[in-house]
């Protein structure tokens, strides 16, 4: 899935490690999410959306 996680993170001035701490996952997970190589679980997707104050579909877009 495509996402704008990196842009939203930069707007907050957070590093990947800081975002990982906020979400309770590893830094490698954030790296893989931003590169679109890893799709989050549903609970993680909801936490991401809640953290940025938006809906899941505002952050993630299906490929194709």
């Amino acid at each position: 899935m495509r996402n704008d996680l990196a842009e939203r993170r930069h707007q907050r001035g957070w590093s990947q490690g800081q975002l990982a701490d906020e979400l309770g996952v590893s830094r490698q997970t954030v790296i893989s999410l931003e590169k679109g190589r890893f799709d989050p679980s549903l609970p993680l997707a909801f936490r991401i959306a809640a953290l940025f104050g938006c809906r899941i579909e505002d952050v993630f877009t299906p490929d194709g």
Partner: protein
Amino acid sequence: MVVRHVAAGVTGLLVAAAIGLVAGASAPDEFWVRAVVFTACTIGPSYGLGWLVFVSGVAGGAPPVHAEETVEHDWWQRSASASFLDLITVAGVGSFALAVADLELSASTALAAVILFAFLDVGVRLSVLRRRAA
């Protein structure tokens, strides 16, 4: 941190040497051969034990709160499940080859080969997934 790695190494050496001594004592006629071979073969896993005790608890900080949602957990699940299928395939092909060639293999040799293959397979699959993500 270097001290912890040295402690892990020393622990590994001591554990491997103890295993070698026990193995050597079980056959006094071949004491040194068995002791050296068993020490050499167990030094890797023994160092791993030392690493678990002295290094892993302090390396990399605390684990993530939601470890089951990390990409590393996904890599492990995919590696382990694919390795299980590889193991079934190899065991099946191996059994067939032994039956066709009418060869005998001791249980300990077969089990050791299975364990070694499983470790290598999971390790290689994890490394490949990690490299693809880099």
